[in-house]
């Protein structure tokens, strides 16, 4: 009940509920049972730190499906929404028995100067993130910037002090390839769960393949 109330408050804060109601309630989101998940490209490797200060390398997740989101905690719009939806997805992955074992989620802050480890940890806790399979990552801006660039992400300070950034979430397969890019605004956690299960149904990479993985930001 409390969560529903929080969701309603969130929507009200987003500011368009009256106009939505005026247009009539939107239908259930449509999902596809057979998603086309073409290989979009290699997922650049990176090393960032979790809220405990431990180094987390993306390549450590080879053999697992990874949902990678770029967010920041002071984001007034889609970031809290996507994190809320990832929270729901976390529950779905747990029920499917793959959370933290075969499927993981990573949320990377694009605003590490504001998002200290403490701020990020509180944010993760607020959304019920279970560190067993969902970690929030940060680094200094100098070390974050190449990661953003590698993913064609960027940040731009708007005149009113807001931070603008591309609204995308990346889905990586067990081999470390990007297989889907979601828009934060239209992210659908039910579809994401189907997509993850589709990728998990593919054959896991052999050990030899794992050793010849994508270009690494670690060497830069």
């Amino acid at each position, binding site marked *: 009940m409390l969560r529903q109330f929080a969701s309603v408050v969130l929507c009200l804060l987003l500011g368009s509920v009256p106009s939505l109601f005026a247009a009539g309630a939107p239908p259930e989101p449509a999902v*596809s049972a057979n998603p*086309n998940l*073409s290989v979009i490209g290699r997922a650049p490797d990176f090393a960032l730190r979790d809220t405990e200060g431990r180094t987390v390398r993306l390549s450590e997740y080879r053999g697992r499906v990874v949902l990678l989101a770029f967010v920041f905690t002071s984001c007034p719009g889609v970031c809290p929404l996507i994190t809320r939806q990832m929270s*729901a997805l976390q529950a779905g992955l747990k029920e499917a028995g793959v959370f933290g074992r075969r499927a993981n989620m990573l949320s990377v802050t694009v605003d590490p100067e504001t998002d200290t480890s403490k701020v990020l940890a509180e944010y993760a806790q607020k959304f019920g993130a279970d560190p067993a399979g969902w970690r929030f990552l940060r680094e200094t801006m100098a070390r974050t910037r190449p990661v953003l660039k590698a993913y064609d992400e960027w940040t731009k300070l708007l005149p009113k002090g807001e931070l603008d950034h591309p609204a995308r979430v990346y889905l990586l397969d067990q081999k470390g390839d990007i297989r889907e890019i979601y828009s934060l605004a*239209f992210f659908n956690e039910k579809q994401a769960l189907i997509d993850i299960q589709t990728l998990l149904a593919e054959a896991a990479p052999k050990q030899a393949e794992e050793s010849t993985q994508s270009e690494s930001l670690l060497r830069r």
Partner: protein
Amino acid sequence: MKAEFRKLPSRMVLVCALAAAFPASQLIAETCISPYIKALSKPETVMYLWALPATPGQGEDFLAVIDVNLASATYGKILKRIPVGSKGNEAHHIGYTDDRTKLWAASLNSDRFFIFDVATDPMNPKLIKVIDNVAKLTGLSGPHTPYAIPGRILVSMASGPDGTGPGGLAEFTNEGRFIASHAATNHPYETVIKPEFNRMITSAWFPQKTWMTPMAQWDPSTWSNPNTLLVWDLKERKIVQTLVAPDAVMLAARWMLKPGAKYGYNISSAGNSIWMFKMEDDGNFSYRKAADTGPNCSPADLRQSPDDKFLYVSCFVGSEIQAWDISDPEKIRLHDTIQGVVQPNMMHVTFDGRRLYFTNSAISSIDYSPRYSMQLVQIGRDGRMKLDPNFKIDFARAPDGPARPHDMLLN
């Protein structure tokens, strides 16, 4: 999973998603672009125009930067031309990437894509990549409209690699790396997506070989299903329904913008008509003629107001621009016209719905007047249109040589 999803009902999630995608202030926002692009919600300052020399092949195709900032001393002037380094491309449509940092320019004849950086210095776009071998890469030819999806560009391609037969959709990363092609059963002209319904619609025209020959030699018998719209499962990239009309050459299509709006319209150039597509409660689409534009119109472009109240149709042969009142979606009616504008073609409505820019070159093989220009229509709150006497760029007498102006984007 179910317990958690119950705590956060999917309907609530969707409402929030739509709220984020369409905050109240953005119900007044730039129209006729991909919903994945952050729409312009303030007055435009610069326009990018994709154009070719008046005599194709005698000079390079170019991207023009035009000052559209009312407060500027150079308002209404071409600030610069950025040549693309090759001739005979037949500059046609352009599209932003989802993050609005890059502009993709498609070439009808050469199949080439030119990618410009428009973020580093918006007044000085930089050509950063040319994709040359598109037909070989994609198995398709005749690229029409670059359309943004998250992190990628989806291009409607009219025909097979030799310029004949059905085309499809080609998918690239924003940087220009080819991902995949998706076969169509007609000649895709334009793509429009409603993400919340997981549905994509593509309209249809004719194969590349047709427009690369003089119009008198066009052979409609070589066209595949030019009277159809294709409905796709967006996630599957799979055609799930074919909408068939007695009219042909289905050009521009537009979904309505209101969240939850299940309908839209498209124009038939050969049929002189406007058609309405609508997703019914069972998920299937109905398709019916909404109006006749008049026998001599030959609709070339279709645009919409941000409030879903008006459609704008350019009559390429009829030399007029029509405003259609669509307040009653099932009974649309002609609201106003501007007449005497020679061969109007592409249009672009501003974020507030108060101005409409238009150019007047279609394709070099079908243009019938060399009086190339860009003009501006002022739109009143009542939807009435008036040609702005203070804005006209004469491309027939452009200082750097006459040119055919086609598609444009604002920033």
